[in-house]
């Protein structure tokens, strides 16, 4: 067994965090001016917010334009707690974390129904709404009172370095949480969501739950930083904590530094926050307003040089010069216990009267289907017949409007895809849904989290699955660099790794050359021989006739024929559906068997 690659990387990151602490503390004690210390505190606070933002948006790809909501709630929790209840920020900041976490849950619950741009836009609305609410409540300006008797009890220090230490503590906390997320299944789940949410869901990842956890954590961290910001700034106004500038700050800093990486947000804050401040100081009183222009130009220039952010660009340069030529090592796959072949008795999957419409289109109409345990069952039909819709109904992407679906005797109706997956149904997609920026083995591990409690076990299961489909040697390659055949096999491995009883293969054979086709066919046959039940979609009949035990033919959402391959291909309705009425007539004239 090789070492888990995560362990050394984690250790490196931990050392880097220690290094960060040393550098920041050294800087705090080296600089003599309160102003510079103040800027250092701001760097650390904005870095914390950016790390918190990255935890949700960087890893999961769900862009939040609204992290000011958490920041502002944190700031107001601390400020109002102190003003109204005399609550010291020492307790106010932890309370802010709780408020931020709850706000994350409340915001995430409705907003995660939305995807992509819609999610981003909805997030934009929260801080803006809060801004008006706090104005309406009369909290336009909340100054934090100066505590003269026991300042330290109220987190008020004469020595600004105390704030540096506090802000550093928050940043380290955010980095540690982030690192924990990145190196566990939490992070892999988020990355899978980022690259392909439906695929993640179909692979058994409970995407909604992981996203909720991420936003709660992210909100709590952002709110803590906002709370300390209030202590440092001493005056809280809705604009200064809920404003657009606050929401855009973590976005700009993370994009600049390198999105989806632990250190990107820190790099962004370290460069841009002091840069903006220096520009304000140097140019603000001479040519007012020019600082904004210079700042913008600087960001554009660096983004042109490093479109994915400084971190990724530098890493790319370093790995290219330092590790050039180091090919991914082939790994030996552990032997995996194969599932016991089951006797092909009875029906594993039974659909009755399933129907679904999209507007006026009847995509599935009264579809009945029985898939025998241990059989290789093919679904064929021309384009638009409803084949993929049928799969989507079975694995929970779509909910049928009528009918029933039973798997091994239990109903699947109303289950989320990840639950269906947990019942023992794996699937692949017509267009391969790979996580391109993850390695092959990582792609497959994503599927293993259902069965495996432990991340190491998950990795072993993934390697075994890769071995089973015959591409264990590609385990460490990036998924983006695979051939079509390898991608299909990788996806197959991902579907296999939770050891399902039923596999749904959606046009796994499409677009393959002869040799590739044969190699995949042999894999599928072997799976069936090992006891797996396979339901496969194709629209080319040729390959299917050689492969399957039983056919079901769909046309315009209806089952038009079902039976053994040899019977089905002679069926008049099937020929008509594929080739049109004229062909049916000719076929019946010649009574020919072959098509």
């Amino acid at each position, binding site marked *: 067994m090789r070492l888990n690659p995560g362990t050394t990387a984690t250790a490196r990151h931990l050392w880097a965090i220690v290094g960060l602490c040393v550098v920041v503390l050294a800087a705090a004690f080296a600089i003599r*001016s*309160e*102003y*510079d210390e*103040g*800027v250092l505190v*701001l760097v650390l606070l904005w870095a914390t917010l950016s790390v918190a933002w990255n935890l949700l948006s960087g890893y999961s790809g769900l862009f939040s334009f609204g992290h000011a909501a958490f920041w502002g709630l944190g700031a107001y929790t601390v400020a109002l707690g102190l003003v109204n209840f005399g609550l010291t920020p020492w307790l106010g900041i932890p309370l802010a974390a709780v408020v931020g976490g709850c706000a994350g849950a409340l915001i995430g619950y409705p907003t995660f129904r939305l995807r992509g741009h819609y999610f981003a836009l909805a997030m934009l609305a929260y801080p803006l709404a809060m801004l*008006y609410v706090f*104005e*309406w409540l*009369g909290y*336009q*300006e909340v*100054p934090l*009172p*100066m505590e*003269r008797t026991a300042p330290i009890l109220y987190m008020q220090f*004469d020595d600004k370095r105390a704030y540096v230490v506090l802000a550093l503590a928050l940043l380290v906390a955010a980095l540690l949480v982030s690192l924990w997320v990145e190196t566990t299944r939490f992070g892999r789940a988020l990355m899978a969501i980022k690259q392909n949410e439906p695929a993640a869901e179909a692979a058994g990842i409970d995407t909604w739950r992981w996203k909720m956890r991420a936003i709660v954590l992210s909100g709590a961290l952002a709110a803590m930083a906002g709370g300390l910001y209030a202590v440092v*700034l*001493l*005056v809280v*106004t809705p*604009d*200064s904590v809920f*404003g657009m*500038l606050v929401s855009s700050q973590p976005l700009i800093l993370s994009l600049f530094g390198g999105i989806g990486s632990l250190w990107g947000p820190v790099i962004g804050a370290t460069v841009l926050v002091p840069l903006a*401040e220096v520009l*304000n*100081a140097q140019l*603000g*009183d001479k040519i*007012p*307003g020019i*600082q*904004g222009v210079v700042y913008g130009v600087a960001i554009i220039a660096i983004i042109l040089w490093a479109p994915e952010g400084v971190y990724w660009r530098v890493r790319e340069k370093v790995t290219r010069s330092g590790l050039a030529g180091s090919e991914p090592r082939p790994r030996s796959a552990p032997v995996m216990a194969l599932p016991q072949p089951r006797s092909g008795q009875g029906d594993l999957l039974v659909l009755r009267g399933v129907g679904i419409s999209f507007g006026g289109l009847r995509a599935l109409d009264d579809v009945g289907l029985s898939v025998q345990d241990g059989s290789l069952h093919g679904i064929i039909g021309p384009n638009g017949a409803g084949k993929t819709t049928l799969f989507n109904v079975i694995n929970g992407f779509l909910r049928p409007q009528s009918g029933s679906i039973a798997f091994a005797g239990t109903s699947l109706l109303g289950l989320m895809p990840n639950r269906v997956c947990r019942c023992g149904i794996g699937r692949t997609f017509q267009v391969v849904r790979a996580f391109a920026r993850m390695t092959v083995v990582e792609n497959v591990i994503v599927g293993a989290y259902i069965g495996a409690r432990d991340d190491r076990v998950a990795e072993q299961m993934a390697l075994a699955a890769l071995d089973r489909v015959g591409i264990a040697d590609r385990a460490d390659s990036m998924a983006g660099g695979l051939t079509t055949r390898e991608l299909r096999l990788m996806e197959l491995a991902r579907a296999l790794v939770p050891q399902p009883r039923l596999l749904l293969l959606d046009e796994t054979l499409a677009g393959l050359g002869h040799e590739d086709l044969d190699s995949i066919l042999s894999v599928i046959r072997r799976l069936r021989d090992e006891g797996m039940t396979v339901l496969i979609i194709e629209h080319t009949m040729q390959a299917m006739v050689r492969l399957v035990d039983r056919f079901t033919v769909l046309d315009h959402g209806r089952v038009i024929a079902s039976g053994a391959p040899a019977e089905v291909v002679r069926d008049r309705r099937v020929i008509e559906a594929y080739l049109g009425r004229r062909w049916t007539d000719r076929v019946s004239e010649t009574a020919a068997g072959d098509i």
Partner: protein
Amino acid sequence: MKTALVAALGTAISTVALGLVPALAQTPAQPAKDVKVALIAPLSGPWARQGQLMQMGADMAIDEINQKGGIKALGGAKMKLVVADAGDTTEKAKNAAERLLSQEPDLIGGTGAWLSSFTLAVTEVTERAQLPWLTLSYSDAITDRGFKYVFQTSPTADHMAREMIPTVIKLAESAGAKRPQTMGIVMDNTAANVSYVKPMHEGWLDQYGLKLVVDQVYTPPLSDATPLIQKVRSARPDFLLLLSSNVPDDKMLLEKLDEFGLGTRKLPTIGSGTHMGTPELLKVTDAEMLEGLLTGASDWGLKGQEDIIARFRQRTGEPWINQDSITAYGDMWILKEAVERVGAADRVKIGDELHKIDITEGPAAVAYPGPVKFDDKGRRVDAPLIIVQWQKGQAVSVFPTDRALAKAFWPAQ
């Protein structure tokens, strides 16, 4: 005992020696060290214009002080203005203050930062550094924090609000109009305006027999004034408080009033804040539409300031002097006066002196209405509300009558 004797003897001898050669000890070629004062104001962003107006006033005062021989108590030391941009956020304003204090450790005082939330943040820094800070910001909170080195030259928002209503009633009666019975409020929800109307919402209007018949709040920037003004038209108050906070909103509201036949000649309209008296407002509307519009301020061109106004107009090309410029001008003179009295560029002593100061003559005394004297909280004693009115395309002071440059008229027919 012995050492003390030697030291005393030494001191005596050196004193005598120095007394003999005073000319050598203070060579005329070596100029006295500059006395540095600060201005923190928004010079970029949405409030940049106000910051520029402040800088114009402060620059003029500094030039005059230096032309007249600088600070006499310090051997003619020159006064020097250091400027920092407060930008458009509280964070930037506070950073500007911290930066100034780091880079200019020998500052003796300053003024700023225009917007009250900026001032709140800036004074948190200056107070800790014991730097005397003057401000024209209205917010009561600024001088409610028990700070020792913050001095508010404007009447506070609360005070201005309480002054405004009786003054308006007096104005109407003295103009021969009937005493107003009803009033309306159209306002945005910015900090200054919210605290301005707070007492009015708490039953304070009853003592004047006034009824609030329309009360509308919007969030700036305003996109459409129609629904607001429709409400005003149906309620028909005797006068209207129009509390916006920027020129574009002013324009939209005034044009809509005009369009609904509620122009300032029909419905007396009272604004608040200096933006309602800026030349920019005239540029985007017209003199006829503005005629009679009233607004409140803490300072404006007044009787006794004629020379200052003339010099200011000549220097800057501005058509008249407003609160921001005249206050910044006066603040520089107050600081100068304090340094003269203390006789040292020592910020703590200057701060203490400002609590005792009572300036009755010179530019500092002329620059403000009312005495130049601060109470324990740092508020200027008896600072009155100034009312400004648009008359023939000029925003002129009309109240208090003893210092106002023009006579007010009540616009209602």
